[in-house]
């Protein structure tokens, strides 16, 4: 069966195509940089890519660039350079790697990024705002904060039709109109609502696909590892959002996952434990970090990262193309709010995930570099332990900085976690007398 699958060229296609698309994307950014074109700098939680593409602006995701330096094991060079420049070791590693990238004229291991002509960001992460101010100071470019009202309290989300939601939607829609005017001014391109409609259609396909791919991983064995494979899919979900290539990718990814599900083809790991991951991955030792779990037969079946770092695309929101601007505001409101909820109101989400994905354990991974995603995880863990009898592991390292990643300490804790899972399973299997 596996042989047949390989012959069909379907299994593993998402990983290969994802890598290829990234190369093409970076080649395009390098060309833009070399021809002196300016880019829109955006972030994963509310990138507004479907709108920005209508102005022919190359789109740069500094968070993705920074994590790529860590995966390619050169992050320390960038961090050192930013710290030498004056940034504190306590500042977000993504920010510092980007500062060094700017100091290097946009040079990255994957290519060269263009300078910004505009920065667009939401309030989903408080660092976004201060980060954009760096570019403002460096390049004198306009920055635009899209203020998205979040959930006021756990379980208190409002929905279309509710007066509070409608107020919030109007608030976001008004900001989008201001953003359009600014983009026209910066790019010199007149806003074209039909192009926006087309891009939103692509975003619909991608969101629908992303939601379906995540849902299909409830299959046993799981079809992909949410920590490793999932990060590749996530990269495409963000980097190519609102593009035809991105839409095509997700159509084919769903096809791959359905193909695997029908044939019972899982990951390369002999799946013994199904795990959920909370937080941002440990990119400086990305492969090894994953191996600490897969060596024990642990596979990550889902993660909060695939939710919040996709800007809430996991929710599968579908834009109404008949009323693009209002629907864009509604989609941004719901999706970005969902991304924030995946960080700040995790307990309910994790309880649902545990049940739906039949998870054997939950791994919390707070990181030094990002307090936004890490604050409250210890409390969240305790709350989860009270509502579900599922073992959890709490390990700390970083998404960027190798200096605060201690592999021996991580391994010690991970090994003990699996010993506990094995003992628990043994007890459950033991005959009762």
């Amino acid at each position, binding site marked *: 069966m596996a042989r047949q699958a390989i012959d069909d060229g379907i299994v593993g296609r998402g990983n290969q195509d994802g890598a290829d698309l990234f190369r093409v994307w970076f080649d395009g950014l390098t060309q833009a940089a070399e021809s002196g074109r300016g880019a829109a700098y955006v972030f994963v939680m509310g990138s507004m890519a479907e709108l920005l593409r209508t102005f022919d602006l190359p789109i740069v995701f500094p968070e993705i660039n920074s994590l790529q330096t860590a995966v390619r094991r050169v992050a320390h060079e960038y961090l050192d350079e930013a710290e030498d420049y004056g940034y504190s070791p306590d500042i977000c590693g993504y920010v510092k790697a980007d500062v060094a990238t700017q100091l290097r004229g946009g040079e990255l291991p994957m290519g060269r990024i263009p300078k910004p002509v505009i920065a667009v960001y939401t309030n989903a992460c408080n660092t976004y705002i201060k980060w954009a101010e760096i570019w403002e100071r460096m390049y004198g470019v306009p920055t635009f904060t899209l203020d998205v009202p979040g959930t006021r309290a756990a379980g208190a989300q409002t929905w279309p039709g509710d007066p509070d939601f409608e107020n919030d939607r109007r608030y976001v829609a008004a900001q989008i109109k201001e953003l359009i005017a600014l983009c026209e001014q910066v790019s010199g391109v007149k806003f074209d609502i039909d192009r926006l409609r087309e891009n939103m259609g692509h975003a619909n396909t991608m969101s629908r696909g992303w939601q379906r791919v995540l849902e299909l991983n409830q299959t046993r064995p799981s079809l992909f590892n949410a920590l490793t494979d999932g990060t590749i899919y996530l990269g495409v979900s963000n980097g190519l959002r609102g593009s035809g290539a991105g839409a095509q990718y997700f159509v084919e990814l769903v096809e791959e996952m359905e193909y695997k599900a029908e044939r019972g083809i899982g990951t390369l790991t002999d799946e013994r434990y199904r795990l959920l991951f909370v937080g941002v991955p440990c990119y400086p030792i990305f492969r090894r970090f994953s191996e600490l779990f897969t060596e024990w037969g642990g596979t990550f079946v889902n993660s909060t990262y695939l939710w919040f770092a996709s800007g809430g695309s996991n929710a599968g929101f579908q834009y109404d193309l008949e009323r693009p601007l209002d629907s864009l505001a509604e989609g941004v409101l719901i999706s970005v709010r969902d991304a924030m909820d995946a960080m700040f109101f995790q307990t309910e989400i994790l309880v649902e995930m545990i049940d739906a994905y039949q998870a054997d354990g939950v791994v919390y991974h707070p990181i030094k570099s990002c307090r936004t995603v890490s604050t409250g995880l210890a409390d969240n863990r*305790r709350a989860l332990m009270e509502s579900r009898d599922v*073992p959890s592991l709490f390990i700390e390292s970083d998404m960027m900085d190798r200096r*605060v990643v*201690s592999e021996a300490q991580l391994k010690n804790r991970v090994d*003990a976690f699996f*010993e*506990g899972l094995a*003992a*628990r399973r043994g*007890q459950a299997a033991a005959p009762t007398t």
Partner: protein
Amino acid sequence: MTEYWRWKETRWHDEDRDWRDGELITAGVDVGSVSSQAVVMVDGELYAFSNMRTGSDSPESARKAMDWAIEGTGLTLDDVGFVVGTGYGRVNVPFSDKAITEIACHARGANYMYGPSVRTVLDMGGQDCKVIRCDERGKVGAFVMNDKCAAGTGRGMEVFADLLAIPIEEVGELSLQVEEEPPPVSCTCVVFAKSEATALLREGWPKSKVLAAYCSAMAHRVVTLLEQVGIEEDFAITGGIAKNIGIVSRLEGEIGIKALPAKFDTQIAGGVGGALFAQSLLKKKLGAN
């Protein structure tokens, strides 16, 4: 030059017993970051142990600990049916049959050393602290460990003993010789704590007061860790710091729970657990044959 930090290495074996009368001889070798222990059990009962400093070479430390534990008993390594390696150096025990983390081993060891009523084990080791919740069989339910700094651990205490020129075994008692508790010193970084202590000495603080401030800070730090997983009685403390009355009494005062009294050397819990795991595994192995 006096090395105030140097704690006493110990060994013991049961002279009233002949290991040849037993059937299952197993060992647990705990190679930690600061100390190493080898524990030999005969049919699930403690027979011999050693407790010594870990050197720079983990395999050599394991060998030395094992040699010392069986010294004078007539036992050889060939007589030991199953060896479990544990601790940070668990994969570097050349003669072990299996490696198991010290978290599982401490829970199992505490169950033997303090009895099956133990539900919360606090291990205050050489370079980390861990809190383990366990059941009546000594199986781990949940655990949490401190972060990477040595402050609040055995190594941090060694640094303080040296700084104040107080033999490490006397630190706890001396820290209690204060009329009132001073405010705690910094305890998130052992280097910072040392600098702070130096400044306090310069201000004229007596050594007992400085030690009281440090022990108090360490106790509070551990309480924070305990609160992360919650404390369920009975409560037991293992590891080298369990021998420091200055920390233990402050800790007990803060949580309002008395730790169970130690009947054995608190540093051998990991090795005891390892030897007990080894016994189960040996039984399984013999049964399979």
